[in-house]
């Protein structure tokens, strides 16, 4: 498949890196090489230093963060420390995860020109190069558009285009699809696959969810939690021979290598007919733009409902409206048969919980314990009762050791758990989640789903999830699909997967469980 001979681009030689404490390095004694035109997948648990490694490879770290490193990295046999500033960046390009924070200009053409200007390409050549690269990434004609008006998927393509203009030999992609909707994700991966075949380009892909990348991957590198490289080799040996080790380290496992197709546990819907929330003819406008038009929706007590749809379809707005966070003018929202806007705020907040996409937004105090008791203090609980409840929550959410830690200093998964725990000081009747698994790794997602299931089963809490993750949608009692200001599907997830029209319209995708069946033959070949 690949052009011979394999020439090395990068040699990483006993390389270690740490932010503060060289005794416990984030990257520990790494030894590996990257070759011309190969595609390598870098996997590892969250917090294992994958992103830092990417920036070390193109020489931005350790200087940019005043970190400490030891060992050497060679680019084509030359130590990267000997390169002039900016020189190495042009040979090794990086596309980052967050589409919002990798641009510095307003218009697409200016952003692309920025790269060319850095390379001192003559002005006259620029327009031609810009339109060529936009053609290559399938984004012709967007030169004059403003970047913030593009969708997430389009932004990532522009980011890719701007890096391709460097004409790099090695392209590093740091979770490039983590913030994209399911279909944009597939499109982006297909695009890379075709680019890789047309250009002389080595790829190093950092991913939480390796599944979709496996077809184009030549080799896999696995980073352990201690910052050591625990395995490297072709995908089929990595995920079979080293399976036990990888699992122990909390590395995300491709679903096709999981023997029992682990789902998030499908539960039979409760036969409750009592409506907790009922939305009637709701229309919502933001300035002159109509976000939701005549939406009707009922949610029953104890139900687990998921809301899906492409970015900007109004999912989060609907969630905020149902939680009483946004005022509405047209239509009705009844919470326990009473108009939401007639509820006393204090009462309402006791019964409705809302978990935001970014857990940091919710933190109010300086320690974990204060965070958990905050609501209880406001409601005048006794010290004893506070202590009891907080201890119970810390135990349940594995936060006992972090009692006095600052919430902002916790790891991603811990922050997520704390943000949920803080909502449970008094068990709410309904709990809203706004894309809680966005950019989280497998174990955090699994943990969260476990907690949610527990809440639903033990306390009969109604759960509403806004999510892009089709595997989560698959495991809920009911799926609601928003598209173009309205609900276009409302029913059993099982039935949703039959509706190809809805799936295409709302830019969704089938869950792995069903895709897996369709691909079974291919996977069989991969393993054996």
């Amino acid at each position, binding site marked *: 498949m690949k052009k011979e001979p394999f020439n090395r681009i990068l040699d990483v030689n006993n390389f270690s890196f740490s932010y503060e404490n060289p005794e416990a390095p984030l990257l520990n004694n790494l030894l590996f090489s990257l070759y011309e035109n190969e595609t390598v997948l870098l996997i590892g648990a969250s917090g294992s230093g994958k992103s830092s490694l990417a920036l070390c490879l193109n020489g931005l770290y350790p200087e940019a963060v005043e970190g400490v490193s030891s060992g050497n990295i060679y680019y084509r046999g030359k130590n990267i420390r000997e390169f002039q500033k900016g020189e190495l960046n042009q040979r090794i390009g990086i596309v980052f995860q967050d589409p919002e924070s990798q641009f510095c200009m*307003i218009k697409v053409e200016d952003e692309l020109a920025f790269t060319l200007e850095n390379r001192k390409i003559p002005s006259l050549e620029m327009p031609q190069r810009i339109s060529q690269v936009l053609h290559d990434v399938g984004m012709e004609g967007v030169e004059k558009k403003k970047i913030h008006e593009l969708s997430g998927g389009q932004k990532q393509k522009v980011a890719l285009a701007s890096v391709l203009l460097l004409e790099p030999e090695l392209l590093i992609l740091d979770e490039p699809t983590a913030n994209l909707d399911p279909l944009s994700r597939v499109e982006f991966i297909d695009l890379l696959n075709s680019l890789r075949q047309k250009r002389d380009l080595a790829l190093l892909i950092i991913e939480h969810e390796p599944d979709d990348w496996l077809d184009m991957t030549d080799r896999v590198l696995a980073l352990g939690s201690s910052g050591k490289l625990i395995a490297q080799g072709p995908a089929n040996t990595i995920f079979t021979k080293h399976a036990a080790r990888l699992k122990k380290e909390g590395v995300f496992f491709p679903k096709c290598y999981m023997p029992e197709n682990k789902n998030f546990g499908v539960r039979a819907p409760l036969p409750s007919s009592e409506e907790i929330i009922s939305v009637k003819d709701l229309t919502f406008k933001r300035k002159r733009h109509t976000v939701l038009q005549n939406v009707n929706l009922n949610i029953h007590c104890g139900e687990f409902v998921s809301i899906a749809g492409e970015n900007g379809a109004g999912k989060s707005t609907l969630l905020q409206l149902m939680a009483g966070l946004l005022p509405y003018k047209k239509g009705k929202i009844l919470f326990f048969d009473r108009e939401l806007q007639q509820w006393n705020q204090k009462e309402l907040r006791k019964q409705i919980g809302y978990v935001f996409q970014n857990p940091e937004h919710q933190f109010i105090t300086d320690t974990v314990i204060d965070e958990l008791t905050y609501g209880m203090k406001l409601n005048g609980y006794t010290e004893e009762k506070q202590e009891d409840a907080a201890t119970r929550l810390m135990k349940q959410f594995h936060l006992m050791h972090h009692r006095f830690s600052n919430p902002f200093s916790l790891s991603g998964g811990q922050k997520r758990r704390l943000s949920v725990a803080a909502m449970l000081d008094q068990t709410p009747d309904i709990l809203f989640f706004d894309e809680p698994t966005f950019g989280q790794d497998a174990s955090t997602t699994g943990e969260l789903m476990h907690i949610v299931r527990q809440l639903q089963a033990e306390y009969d809490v109604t759960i509403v999830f806004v999510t892009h993750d089709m595997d989560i949608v698959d495991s809920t009692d009911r799926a609601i699909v928003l598209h173009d200001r309205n609900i276009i599907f409302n029913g059993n997830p099982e039935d949703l997967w039959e509706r190809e029209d809805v799936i295409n319209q709302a830019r969704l995708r089938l869950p792995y469980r069903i895709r897996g069946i369709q691909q079974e033959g291919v996977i069989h070949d991969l393993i054996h």
Partner: protein
Amino acid sequence: MISSINPAMKAVTIMVPGLLLSFTFDVFTPLVYFIFILIITFTLADIRPMTWLKIFSPFVLVALTSAWMATLYANQTFSYGNVLFTIWGVDITEGSLMTGISLGLRSLCFVALSLLFALTTDSTKFMLSLMQQFKLPPKITFGILAGYRFLPVFRSEYQILKQAHRIRGADREPGIKGRIKQFRRYAIPLLANGLRKSERVAIAMESKGFTGDKERTHYHQMSIQTKDWLFFILFAGMLAITIAVSYSLGYLNIFGRQF
């Protein structure tokens, strides 16, 4: 039309009358110049009158207030002439009234000039021309340009924070102490996120080969052409003519000195 003038040159052009006018304390000079600016705004610049009025009208109130204050509290130098009328025991003289009106007109001139610049200038091009014409270091100009992108992000983050805190009942805390606490609660995550994002952007810029090197090519070649000089001469020339006419008619007053 005016949007095609070199932005750096435009900035200088409006700064010259803006500064010089602040020394004229008579009514005639700023009035004539104000009319001139209005004519330019509605003929040569491609500005929608409604847009302009919307932004301009609040400043009229500001100008009126400051004019009135200046009238009431005019310095001795300026309170010459006969007493026109008395208000709450304060004598309003001819001189103080003129000074007040003049101040109002000057502030209107300044607002109109600023609007003429702001409404016809592309912020990106302004930065690029500051870099190319005035040799501002690329680190600063591209830093500011990247900062532009943050403004809307900041606003939406603030909205989310407010909601998140409402969910926790955080706005229930009464008193000034509670308010200070709340400000701190907003400020820390906003700043933390802002820092994190700007760090990310900086790294993304560097990884696209940006070094802050002044030697770079330019996609938008900004240059100063004849029409830019003409624009400058138009504004500076009109100022000179206005002052000259004002002088010959005996109206001109600079810092209280009548000429």
